[in-house]
């Protein structure tokens, strides 16, 4: 769009009316070059006229930006003590100016958002954290109570919702979990095998691998994977439903969101995660088996014959036993954070991050606690 720039100029000195200023051009977003216009203004401001007439009849276009510029400048001049008369301004453009005049006073009263700084911020964060812990405990408490009532009236369990959660969190994750565990089996065997070879104790790879994968790696890595995969999905789903007022809608229809949305997710994951852990056990051992064969030259047959002799059943059970605990951690945190979403896309992102970080953190904390517990029980 070709534009002619906005400008203000004094007529040449031999003009009959030396106090008459000529405004011309497009006083629009595209037409105003702030630097040029400011130079024009400064030149005129410096002359300190006591009386000026602004001829605006040559203004070819004007928008809010132009009107605001003109208004500000006229204000500046009158504060200098110049008496201004505006003439020739198109009626439509004048309406813009009048609109601005009407609103300009309110501009001064822009309130500030309350912000916390320093000690106050620290205090606020602390209180917020404590409140979050309190809210989380309440959330878990309500879940327990609802679960107990569900035990009395099992027909209220949303069976189809439960199945779909198992499908999405368990079945759909089979591929990635298998691949991941298989590779972990390979990596573990490689590093441990190298050391054992030095001592000529290659056969012990089977003992080590069995214990490491069944007790630690399979449950822990599966849980971390699921926290990233399904925990984040839970939070985002519930968060979006919160934003779109779907959860409020459920509440008004007499359907408890806890029964429809939260308990199926918690139960579903608690069923799916142990199953996934068994799946990860299988593929972890298979990975180890393949690597043992190719690196340490132990035959598949020897491996499989020795395995049940040296790896106690309790290792498998302990590993699988951790999984429901991890599942409860993931699903409770994910659902809790999902319901804490407030009104914006930003908030969905924030809570999803919190959900995954907290889940993984507490999974590892729980795993450490398990280790301490088992060592005192000498399992």
């Amino acid at each position: 769009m070709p534009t002619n720039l906005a400008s203000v100029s004094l007529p040449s000195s031999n003009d009959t009316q030396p106090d008459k200023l000529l405004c011309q051009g497009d006083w629009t977003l595209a037409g105003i070059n702030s630097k040029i216009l400011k130079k024009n203004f400064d030149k005129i401001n410096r002359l300190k006229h006591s009386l000026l007439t602004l001829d605006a009849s040559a203004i070819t276009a004007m928008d809010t930006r132009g009107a605001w510029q003109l208004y500000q400048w006229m204000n500046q001049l009158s504060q200098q003590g110049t008496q201004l008369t505006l003439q020739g301004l198109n009626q439509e453009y004048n309406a813009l100016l009048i609109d601005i005049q009407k609103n300009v006073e309110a501009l001064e009263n822009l309130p500030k958002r309350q912000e916390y700084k320093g000690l106050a911020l620290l205090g606020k964060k602390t209180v917020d954290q404590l409140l979050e812990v309190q809210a989380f405990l309440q959330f878990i408490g309500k879940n327990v109570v609802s679960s107990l009532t569900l035990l009395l009236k099992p027909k209220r369990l949303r069976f189809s919702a439960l199945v779909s959660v198992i499908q999405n969190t368990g079945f759909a994750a089979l591929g990635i979990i298998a691949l991941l565990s298989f590779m972990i089996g390979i990596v573990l065997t490689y590093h441990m095998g190298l050391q054992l070879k030095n001592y000529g104790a290659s056969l012990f790879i089977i003992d080590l691998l069995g214990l490491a994968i069944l007790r630690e790696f399979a449950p822990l890595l599966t849980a971390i994977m699921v926290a990233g995969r399904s925990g984040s999905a839970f939070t985002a789903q519930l968060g979006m439903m919160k934003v779109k007022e779907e959860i409020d809608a459920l509440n008004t229809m007499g359907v408890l969101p806890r029964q429809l949305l939260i308990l199926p997710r918690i139960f579903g994951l608690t069923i799916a995660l142990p199953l996934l852990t068994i799946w990860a056990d299988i593929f972890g051992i298979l990975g180890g088996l393949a690597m043992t064969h190719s690196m340490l030259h132990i035959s598949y047959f020897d491996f499989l014959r020795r395995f049940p002799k040296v790896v106690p059943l309790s290792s498998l059970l302990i590993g699988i036993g951790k999984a429901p605990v991890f599942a409860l951690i993931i699903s409770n945190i994910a659902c809790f954070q999902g319901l804490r979403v407030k009104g914006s896309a930003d908030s969905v992102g924030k809570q999803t991050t919190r959900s995954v970080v907290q889940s993984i953190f507490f999974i590892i904390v729980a795993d450490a606690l398990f280790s301490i517990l088992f060592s005192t029980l000498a399992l």
Partner: protein
Amino acid sequence: MPASNVVITLNNVKISIAGQWIHQGINLEVKRREIVAIVGSSGAGKSTILREILLLLVPTSGTIEVFGKDVSKLPPSGVLALQRRWGVLFQQSALFTSLTVLENIAFPLREHTALDKKTIRELALLKLLAVGLPITAAIKYPSELSGGMLKRAALARALIMDPELLLLDEPTTGLDPQGAEAFDDLLLSLRAILGLTILLVTHDLDTLWHTTDNVAFLSAGRVLECSPIAQLTQSTEPAIRTYFQGPRGRITQQLYGKTHGI
């Protein structure tokens, strides 16, 4: 600026979405400084027209011209130039939830102009006041506003660049009667001051009578008739008759009809 007086032309536009023909040959023309409304029953494809004009949907066949240029053949720079010349108000406001209202309104200025921060803030505040929001709304986030205020804030954002063309999707839905009336007046005064061309989708009969120059009635994927509202309500077309001859249609017709000479 193109010499032509026509701002939007839709020429035999057809679109099929998910195997269903939404438009089966739309022809529509919007002239400079006109306020044109698109009406039709729900699901008739009214918003789809807006989305096609806005380049959010590509029609299966037919051409759409905005400011005299075929939008499907514009180079990226041309699209950008076009996008600066229109303002859009979406049905659900579509304010950015992570920004305050003031930041939302100022957003196009921040992205597309080299103005200094102070001027941007002042201009955004002026727009905010011009659409009738209180100054206290400026620092709030969209989630803290009521539906009507969201609409106004979104309108302020659509208007911040002082566009030549305004596309509105159900602008008065969810406003209180005073708010809707003020909105209608605002549209008229904007056209008077800024010389705006406005294309809106609406169900609001008051808006139709009060503001529009022409009303396009959409049915079965075509524009059945595009004429001034007074004429449209007298149409003998059955679909148009059922639309306007319900109790609400008759009341507004009685109310406004006299001033329009019916």
